[in-house]
């Protein structure tokens, strides 16, 4: 189970009325390397990995949900005051036709989210390598998003999210090291 804290993991401030950026940010909401895919991938893997690394998957999977919330906040802030015409100009006309201003799990191109974005191989090394790749891909997405805006406040939140991907990658790399460790070998640090 989870306890919910009624605040964001890191503050989200959006200072520039750039509706098109909402469309691009959606990539991290319902895209292949987005936060939803990340959360579901890790939380699902928890059941079938060696005990030693369950905690890491649990913690990181949970944190991804907090990131998902931050992205949702950004998208919402950028679209809540937009007219249908603004949305059309921002390339969100098709989204509006289908969803009004509701958030939807889709990628920046409007393709709906699918469970095929991630997998569960059941082989701990294979799954961890996927996780490491997923973190590096999410890190890249944040870079491409940062490259497309000059809103310094938005960049601040995106930079935080990018840094978290670096930490997650580090932790998954450490999980691989833990699993490689010979059972009875003496550890010397």
């Amino acid at each position, binding site marked *: 189970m989870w306890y919910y804290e009624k605040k964001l993991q890191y503050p989200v401030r959006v200072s520039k009325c750039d509706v098109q950026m909402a469309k691009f940010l959606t990539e991290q909401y319902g895209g292949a390397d987005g936060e939803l895919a990340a959360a579901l991938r890790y939380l699902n893997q928890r059941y079938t990995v060696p005990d030693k690394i369950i905690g890491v998957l649990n913690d990181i999977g949970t944190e991804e949900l907090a990131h998902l919330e931050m992205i949702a906040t950004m998208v919402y802030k950028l679209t809540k005051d937009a007219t249908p015409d603004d949305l059309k100009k921002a390339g969100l006309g098709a989204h509006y036709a289908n969803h009004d201003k509701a958030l939807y799990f889709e990628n920046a191109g409007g393709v709906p989210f699918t469970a095929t974005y991630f997998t569960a191989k059941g082989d701990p090394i294979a799954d961890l390598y996927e996780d490491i790749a997923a973190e590096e891909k999410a890190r890249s997405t944040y*870079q491409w998003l940062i*490259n497309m805006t000059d809103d310094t406040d938005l960049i601040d939140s995106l*930079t935080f*999210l990018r840094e*978290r991907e*670096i930490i997650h990658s580090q932790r998954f*790399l450490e999980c691989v*090291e833990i699993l490689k460790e010979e059972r009875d070998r003496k550890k010397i640090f």
Partner: protein
Amino acid sequence: MNTFRKTYKPFIGPFDPCPPMKVKSYETPPQLYMGFQPYNLPQFPNLQTALKHGTLWPALFAPYENPYRKGGA
């Protein structure tokens, strides 16, 4: 100290349709070099600073700036 960004000079053809980008770059953040995180790494002085950086440890902090901006690679 490892650098967080690497650059390279791609081949530029004589008949390329667009003005060439002479230098391209990619990111190489610190987790690629760390291996297992060592014990007792120095931490940021307080929680506020750590939150701002997105990590407790300066050794894992990788600043990022738009490389297409003036002054970038």
